[in-house]
């Protein structure tokens, strides 16, 4: 018997083939997807074989040693003589005023010059702070004809100095950019005593705030004609500073500018004079020694004639110069930079180079693509020789110009007070190559060579006590070879982080209008979303570079991740444009002078492993910080002379300022005479070499795999988005339609006059009961207590209850003849109802669940609807009676705004899909015509409703026919109930699939049933996926794109709930519950739907049997199959 019933079930798969087939399909799909994923990763992992010509790519081979040309006579070495003679004359005629200030008596000063833009300066300071007593950072500037004092202090540095017992003595200079501004000082020197006094006290306050020990004044290009005015001005300054316990130090250049100051007149109140014993040959001069021994000695003899010897500090050079004798450019370089040049040019192996008489400065020559170079360098040997002379003069101290450029061995020399012995000489000989990054060349396109190699030099002691040396093997430091600045009128325009669908096209429009070709460093992730922009970039002649896939900091990633980042972007560019790129720019740290080897490692990796050429930049107007288009332009103007590659951004936020600044920048560059060129032109190679077409080679296959992968993924994402859009639109339309229909129906009902029936028809109320002993008496009394004025009978069938249900019924029956009680052995609810139906004698039958309580008017309201002879069945308004926990409260709201609202609306178009078993009324003839209740689905109420529709009966809804039902009170019970409903719904939808899109039943076929399919099954099943995407979007930061959709859904839910509550006269505040329901209740429903789907697929007997039995035993309410909420 059970077997027979079960075998007719919808979805039953008696042979049991479906489930294994389904599992096989799922398994193999997963395997296929996995293999595709692995293949894709492999395709991205493969390193591209492409490389630029070695010329561009490698540092080696660029530099060539040149034979040392005959040195030009050092005419400047004797410049001091003029001053010496004058000084002697002065000294003989004037009695010297000796300063009595304490500071001069105190110990020897060891001062370091410091710049904040070179990380090597900080590194040097950290290592040697113990060897120093004072630090001179470039903090103060005096500029403009109005003598403005600008402070650019560095608080961390000040703190560092304080913590390490270093006194800071900041430099005050009249330098702006590369322009000395003498008028800033001269105006002040000519100003009134009042103005000078004001400046002096301001300076004292500023220095106090900086916790400085004083100030080191370094003015240049001043007019010696004003010497006495400067003296008076410095006097005012000194008075003010001394009153604040601050010192006044004055830097004095060792050249014609020596005349600028009246040293002897200044000596009484200037605490220290700092003699700048370097730059004998510098900017504007022909190549020559930075500070020859003879020159230093000469000037030392001059300064000895002025002031106290102890008042003087000898600032010794520790920097070097690289003169390009072809282009006449001068680069200030460090000792390490000089060594790297010598090493790569092979100067050491081809004859070597030395530091020896007469200059005791180092010198070598080499050539590269940009011409011939002459390098003059200072090292520990020259430092030793100069320091020796300084000490003989018994001066007040020594300064090092500047930290970060020095030969590291000078610190050993500085600590040495005794003459050099063999042991000391041996100490200076090895040239240890550390991790300090060195730079060669000019430009922002770089090749990296991280190799480093120690060197060695040979030192010799001369009879005079001087040291000289020979470089046998120059050390090699990690090096960046800079290119791309050969033509000063060429400038590269680069855009990072795109492409972006909003900003990139606008940038491209501007560039197109002006015929400008730029270079775009694209982020793979963005390019993947907008491949059409990649193609447009190429079509319009721009160049594309790799900017990683996710724009993460590559320096912090393991190499495998770096490879994936670069590989994925590379493959994407290939797939979309048919071209490859050789250009790479690392996210972050793109300024052209990285000083940390750790920062360089991604660059080196990209170059070594992936064959990329690295493009950095020096013109960074920081457009991303949105300072205003004018400021962006101004920054480009200020930085243009210092660089040849401009960095802008075409993505990553609101780029409207960049867009506004771009035409201004292009106009300005055009006016300046610059041509804006892509990277290939900066490198002087062809566009085809930078971005070659992909060709058939060993990697063609991998390229196809990668391309397919990217396309599939995009297809998937696009489908998902389309679905989101369509679903949102449908939900909105359906919600509005429902609201409108329900509201209209309500109005129609209200307008309809109450039916005054002459003869109320006889009604049979049918109840099936199983173990409902606690409540059945109440149910029966409520039904019998009806105000229905026609003939009423109540038939209850006890389905073999074991809790005395039958006895309860009989007690009630004893007092009311209208009640007829029957019993049967337990055989299911439908069997019980079938039995009840055979006993019923009325034309109208009302079905009632044993746990559902009627109101007095319920039966009358139901029957009123049946006055229409075409009406086959009427649904009542089932409401949850046990609203005392979250689960039942949720259900209550769901009944009101899901089931009842839908039904109200559907009535308008006669397409109610279910007349619930808990409370419904049927016309007996309709029921019979439909063949009664069938048993091949779990939702016989839905089944019969759809049957009635097929037979052209109308199906109505009586919202005022309220019955209070008992809802499951636990999640588990609810889930069980809902699985049954969902499964039953699916069965009915499937069984009556001919009704879907059936034009004979338009409302049902095109509205009610598709709604059930889409909103109650598909959409509910997808809820977890949508929520997961939302959560993921929160993590990766795309939330802004998705939130509107979710907000729309939620708002609609809320509005509908409010409307439903209003229509059902329930307090509106209950509608708020829809919000937590959205996040908890919905997941349950999703689980339910999936469970049902799996069961349907499985279609196995074991599933039916269990389900059927549990349905029989615990059934407690109606099957509300088609009313799962949206």
């Amino acid at each position, binding site marked *: 018997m059970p077997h027979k019933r079960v075998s007719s079930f919808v979805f039953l798969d008696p042979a049991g083939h479906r489930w294994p087939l389904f599992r096989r399909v799922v398994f193999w799909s997963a395997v296929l997807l996995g293999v595709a994923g692995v293949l894709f990763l492999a395709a991205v992992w493969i390193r591209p074989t492409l490389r630029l010509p070695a010329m561009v790519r490698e540092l080696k081979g660029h530099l060539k040693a040149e034979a040392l040309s005959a040195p030009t006579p050092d005419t400047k070495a004797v410049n001091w003589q003029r001053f010496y003679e004058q000084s002697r004359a002065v000294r003989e005629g004037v009695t010297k005023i000796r300063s009595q200030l304490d500071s001069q008596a105190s110990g020897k000063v060891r001062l370091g010059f410091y710049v904040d833009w070179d990380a090597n300066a900080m590194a040097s300071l950290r290592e040697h702070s113990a060897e120093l007593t004072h630090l001179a950072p470039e903090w103060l500037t005096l500029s*403009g*004809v*109005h003598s403005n004092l600008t402070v650019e202090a560095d608080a961390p540095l000040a703190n560092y100095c304080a913590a390490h017992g270093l006194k800071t003595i900041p430099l005050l200079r009249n330098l702006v950019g590369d322009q000395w501004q*003498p*008028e800033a000082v*001269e*105006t002040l020197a*000519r100003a009134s005593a009042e103005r000078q006094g004001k400046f002096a006290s301001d300076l004292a306050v500023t220095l106090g705030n900086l916790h400085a020990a004083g100030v080191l004044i370094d003015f240049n*290009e001043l*007019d*010696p*004609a004003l010497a006495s005015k400067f003296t008076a001005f410095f006097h005012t300054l000194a008075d003010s500073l001394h009153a604040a316990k601050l010192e006044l130090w004055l830097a004095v250049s060792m050249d*014609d500018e020596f*005349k600028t100051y009246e040293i002897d007149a200044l000596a009484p109140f200037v605490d220290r004079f700092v003699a700048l014993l370097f730059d004998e040959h510098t900017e504007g001069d022909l190549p020559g020694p930075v500070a020859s021994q003879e020159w230093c000695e000469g000037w030392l003899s001059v300064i000895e004639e002025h002031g106290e010897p102890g008042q003087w500090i000898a600032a010794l050079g520790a920097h070097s110069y690289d003169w390009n004798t072809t282009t006449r450019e001068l680069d200030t370089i460090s000792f390490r930079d000089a060594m790297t040049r010598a090493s790569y040019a092979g100067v050491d192996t081809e004859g070597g180079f030395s530091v020896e008489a007469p200059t005791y400065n180092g010198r070598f020559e080499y050539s590269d693509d940009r011409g011939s170079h002459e390098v003059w360098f200072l090292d520990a040997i020259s430092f030793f020789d100069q320091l020796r002379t300084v000490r003989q003069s018994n001066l007040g101290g020594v300064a090092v110009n500047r930290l970060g450029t020095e030969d590291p061995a000078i610190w050993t020399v500085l600590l040495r007070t005794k003459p050099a012995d063999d042991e000391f000489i041996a100490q200076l000989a090895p040239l240890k190559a550390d991790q300090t990054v060195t730079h060669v060349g000019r430009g922002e396109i770089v090749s990296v060579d991280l190799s480093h190699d120690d060197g060695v030099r040979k030192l010799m002691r001369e009879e005079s006590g001087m040291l000289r040396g020979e470089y046998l093997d120059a050390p090699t430091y990690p090096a960046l070879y800079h290119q791309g600045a050969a033509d000063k*009128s060429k400038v590269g325009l680069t855009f990072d982080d795109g492409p972006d669908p909003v900003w990139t096209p606008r940038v491209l429009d501007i560039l197109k209008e002006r015929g400008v070709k730029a270079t775009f460093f694209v982020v793979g992730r963005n390019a993947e979303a907008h491949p059409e922009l990649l193609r447009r970039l190429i079509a319009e002649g721009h160049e594309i570079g790799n900017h990683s896939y996710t724009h993460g900091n590559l320096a912090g990633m393991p190499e495998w991740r770096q490879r994936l980042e670069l590989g994925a972007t590379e493959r994407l560019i290939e797939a979309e444009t048919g071209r490859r790129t050789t250009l790479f720019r690392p996210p972050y740290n793109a300024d052209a002078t990285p000083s940390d080897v750790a920062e360089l490692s991604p660059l080196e990796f990209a170059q070594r492993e992936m064959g990329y050429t690295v493009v950095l930049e020096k013109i960074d107007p920081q457009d991303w910080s949105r300072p205003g288009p004018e400021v962006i332009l101004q920054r480009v*103007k200020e930085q*243009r*002379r210092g660089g040849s590659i401009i960095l802008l951004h075409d993505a990553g936020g609101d780029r409207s300022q960049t867009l506004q600044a771009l035409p201004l920048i292009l106009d*300005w560059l*055009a*006016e*300046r*005479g610059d041509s804006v060129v892509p990277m290939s032109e900066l490198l002087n190679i062809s566009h085809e070499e930078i971005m070659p077409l992909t060709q058939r080679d060993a990697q063609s296959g991998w390229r196809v795999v990668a391309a397919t992968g990217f396309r599939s993924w995009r297809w998937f994402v696009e489908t998902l988005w389309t679905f989101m859009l369509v679903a949102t639109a449908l939900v909105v339309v359906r919600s509005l339609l429902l609201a409108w229909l329900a509201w209209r129906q309500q109005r129609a009902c209200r307008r309809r006059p109450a039916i005054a029936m002459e003869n109320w028809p006889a009604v049979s109320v049918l109840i099936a009961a199983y173990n409902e002993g606690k409540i059945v008496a109440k149910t029966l009394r409520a039904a019998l207590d009806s105000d229905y004025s026609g003939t009423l009978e109540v038939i209850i069938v006890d389905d073999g209850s074991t809790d005395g249900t039958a006895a309860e019924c009989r007690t009630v029956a004893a007092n009311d003849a209208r009640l007829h009680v029957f019993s049967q052995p337990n055989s299911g609810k439908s069997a019980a109802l079938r039995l009840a139906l055979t006993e019923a004698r009325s034309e109208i039958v009302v079905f009632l669940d044993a746990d559902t309580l009627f109101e007095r008017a319920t039966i009358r309201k139901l029957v009123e609807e049946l006055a229409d002879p075409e009406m086959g069945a009427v649904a009542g308004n089932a409401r949850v009676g046990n609203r005392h926990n979250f689960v039942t409260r949720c259900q209550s709201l769901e009944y009101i705004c899901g089931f009842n609202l839908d039904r109200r609306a559907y009535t308008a178009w006669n397409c109610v899909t279910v007349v619930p078993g808990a409370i419904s009324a049927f016309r007996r003839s309709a029921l019979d015509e439909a063949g009664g209740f069938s048993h091949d689905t779990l939702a016989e109420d839905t089944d019969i409703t759809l049957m009635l529709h097929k037979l052209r009966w109308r199906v109505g809804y009586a919202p005022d026919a309220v019955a209070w039902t008992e809802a499951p009170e636990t999640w588990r019970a609810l889930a069980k109930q809902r699985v049954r409903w969902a499964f039953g719904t699916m069965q009915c939808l499937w069984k009556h699939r001919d009704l879907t899109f059936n034009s004979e039943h338009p409302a049902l076929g095109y509205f009610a049933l598709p709604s059930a399919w889409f909103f109650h099954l598909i959409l509910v099943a997808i809820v977890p996926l949508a929520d997961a995407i939302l959560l993921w979007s929160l993590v990766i930061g795309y939330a802004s794109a998705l939130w509107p959709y979710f907000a729309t859904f939620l708002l609609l839910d809320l509005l509908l709930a409010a409307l439903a509550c209003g229509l059902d006269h329930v307090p509106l505040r209950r509608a708020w519950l829809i919000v937590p329901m959205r996040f908890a209740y919905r997941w349950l429903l999703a689980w339910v739907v999936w469970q049902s789907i799996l069961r349907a697929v499985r279609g196995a007997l074991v599933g039916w049997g269990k389900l059927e039995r549990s349905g029989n035993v615990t059934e407690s309410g109606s099957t509300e199959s088609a009313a799962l909420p949206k």
Partner: protein
Amino acid sequence: MKSSRRNTRLESSSLVAVAGLIVLAIVLISLGAHWWLARPGTNPHVADQPATGIMTGAFMDFGDTEDDVTLEKIETFEQLTGKHHAIIASSSYWGEQTFPAANVALIARHGSIPLVFWSPWDRPYKEGHGPDKFSLTSIIGGIHDEYIDRWGDSAKAFGKTMVVSFGNEMNGSWFPWSGVFYGGDKTAPGGGFQGPETFKAAWRHVVDRVRARGATNVKWVLHVMDFSMPNDKWNLAAKYYPGADYVDWLGFSLYGAQFPSDESYPDFFSCFDWPYTELTQIDPVKPIMLCEWGVGEFPEKGNKGDWIRAAFQTMSDTAKYPRLKAAVFWHERWQNSANEVDESSKENAGKYSDLRVNSSPDSLHAYREGVAMPLFLGRPPRDP
């Protein structure tokens, strides 16, 4: 009836068509005329002088060879003075053997007229000595024709108005092309004084060749020193005038005190009035350009701000000086050689001459106020 109505309609529609054609023709003709007139280099007599007002110009400290013209320097100066300048002056020294193409192009793009001092001398460009390999006689002898022609070709290629001052301040004694170095007051073979006659011959030679290359966009300014040195009859400006056909502008340099050794601080008016009058008498119509004007900052000798204020006041007297159409300020600071041997200038050794507009707050203020006057034009007049 029908047909007549159709006729009326026909008539009215053909009227509309004719009117439309006329309008179209007018538009096309005026567009064409505009295009024709706007073509560069078609009109040999481009009005580069304004009908009213004085074009404001400056030399903006373009370095030792006066040719390091950069947009940054121009913008810095104009920001400092608060005024776009209609004329920007720079030099082209023959020793470089080039045409300053980048400089004039930059100045034109900036919306200004380039004034180029085309000086026939050789490196190291030191004043105070006689002729070198670019002597006037070698120019007349055709030795440098290749360079002149090349220069003319480049000027033609540039195509926009430029004003050229060849051999400026020839009535002085410091540049090697001065009349004093070419026989001075000796009688020339063809009559007249040999110094000025040699200069004029060289001028005509140069102008003829450049014009022969088709560089009609070049306007020539005869650019003398305010007072001749020596101030003798043979050396007066008029003696150097090569003829109305060879000159577009008449110009002069005017400097107040320039060196620390200068004893006095001569006022602007006395340096301006006489030379202006002298030039107006050479030719009755040619516009006059103050090709260089400036003064050093020597507060103990005189007040630079007042001097500049007086300069603007004088130049503003358009009733008295109606032909003054341009004034070019000399913005430069230089250090006088430390190795001065000449006894008279020994005092200058190593000291600075600060002719910059911002040598003092008051100087800058005076200049800013002066150029802010509407009379001083910040832009050249538009080409017709």
